[in-house]
């Protein structure tokens, strides 16, 4: 599967580089951190080609929700379909190796995901001039761009983004939003994004506040002892 | 006291160490049990 469009794509999206994928469906989901239930009764669907923006105050459980969608932690209750194996997660840390060059970092993630590294990704994320630089010498914003470029390299259709624009300047934010819209969503990919910045996407916003779990929500790791 | 002969020191020190450690273990277990129990009762009375 090349970076751009391939045949055999779903018919609903005429130019779709992803194989047909199911929507991300979340039903009755409860999410915990450190054994304490943070969110409960979550239900939403993200169709291919669509994005969902998560909003909510600090500590409400955005990161835990994204980690649960990514399959890093098991749901306390409910179920998630369509993410997991199809999802690429980007958290606060970029997973960038300081002693490797930009190109080596991306080539590694391409290799892990069994894909060839396409040169277009360097242009898309404004990294062409930095290709042979050691990642350790990058600025915070450049490093973040490299971390985001990894998402494109994995070729996974569902993106789970936790504050992706941190330390990006306005131009980089706009560039990233453009990539997300034109090269990802328009090609049949989808995204769940926790962000405080308006990326200018035509995406519904899900406010997590109504789903905040009370102190005695069922499913806590402490439950057996209460 | 039985006649322990030339090995009196050996036998008594082995018994001393063994019984001493057992007593220490029992004592530590009981004090911790009491402390935790009291702490729990205090918190439960606190109404949380």
């Amino acid at each position, binding site marked *: 599967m090349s970076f751009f469009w391939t045949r055999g794509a779903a018919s609903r999206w005429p130019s779709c580089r992803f194989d047909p994928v199911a929507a991300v469906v979340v039903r009755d989901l409860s999410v915990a951190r450190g*054994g*304490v239930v943070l969110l409960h009764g979550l239900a939403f669907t993200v169709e291919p080609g669509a994005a969902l923006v998560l909003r909510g105050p600090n500590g409400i459980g955005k990161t835990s929700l994204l980690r649960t969608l990514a399959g890093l932690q098991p749901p306390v209750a409910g179920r998630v379909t369509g993410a997991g194996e199809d999802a690429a997660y980007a958290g606060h840390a970029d997973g960038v190796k300081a002693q490797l060059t930009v190109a080596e970092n991306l080539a590694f993630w391409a290799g892990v995901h069994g894909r060839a590294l396409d040169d277009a990704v360097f242009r898309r994320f404004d990294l062409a001039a930095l290709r042979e630089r050691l990642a350790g010498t990058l600025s915070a914003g450049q490093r973040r761009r490299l971390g985001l470029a990894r998402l494109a390299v994995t070729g996974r259709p569902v993106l789970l983004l936790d504050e992706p624009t941190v330390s990006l300047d306005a131009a980089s934010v706009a560039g990233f939003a453009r990539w997300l819209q034109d090269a990802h969503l328009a090609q049949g990919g989808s995204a769940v994004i926790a962000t405080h910045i308006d990326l200018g996407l035509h995406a519904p916003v899900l406010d997590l506040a109504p789903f905040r779990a009370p*102190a005695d929500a069922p499913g806590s790791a402490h439950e057996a002892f209460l | 006291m039985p*006649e322990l002969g030339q*090995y009196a020191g050996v036998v008594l020190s082995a018994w001393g160490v063994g019984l001493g*450690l057992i007593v220490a273990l029992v004592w530590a277990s009981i004090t911790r*049990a009491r402390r935790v129990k009291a*702490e729990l009762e205090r918190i439960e009375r606190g109404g949380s």
Partner: protein
Amino acid sequence: MSIWEYANPKKFITTFGPWVMPLMVVAGVLLVVGLGWGFFLTPEAQNFGSTVKIIYIHVPSAFVAINAWIMMLVTSLVWLIRRHHVSALAARAAAPVGLVMTVIALVTGAIWGQPMWGTWWAWEPRLTSFLILFLFYLGYIALWSAVPEPETAADLTSAVCIVGSVFAVLSRYAVLFWAQGLHQGASLSVDRAEHVADVYWLPLMVSMAGFVALFVALVLMRTITEIRARRITALMARAERAEAVA
């Protein structure tokens, strides 16, 4: 009525809590009888002199030390398979008891070795195996206290316990292969009890029963303590959460 009902923390406390004191008394009586009998009323052995009296401490503590680890292995498996919290806490409660028993077996063995072999420490299979067991206990207990999150700690310690058990068996064979023993295996070990004259064997069995009763009582008491400590954590977490939500 299933045995798993007792895996409920409250049920465990109400069921086994009342057993602790009686078991302690039974253990005390058995220990006084067995140890007293052994210490005051048994003759000296031909080759050992009065040092033979050390077996009443040495052998039961070694026996409990090994069986405590086996109990921890079983409860760890139960935790990993059935996720019963009490099971994990019982393993945690048993570890320090096993550690102390291992230390007693090692120290009394060394003290005994001094007059018998002419040295405090000999690198012979059993002492070496117990040294390895001692390291296992230390690592296991240290891991429990190093991981703050209870479920994570239970999972990690269970994995270490299971992997460690396999390697403990391997070590046992390796150590046997590695050194020919100085130990008086045939005359002192329990599985060869028929080789010990009845005068020593009967009080030894009573002491053994006393150690086992003491172990059970201590593990029950400590498990209940762990359950209560865990309940404190749970209540605090809930109160903190209630504050955050409000």
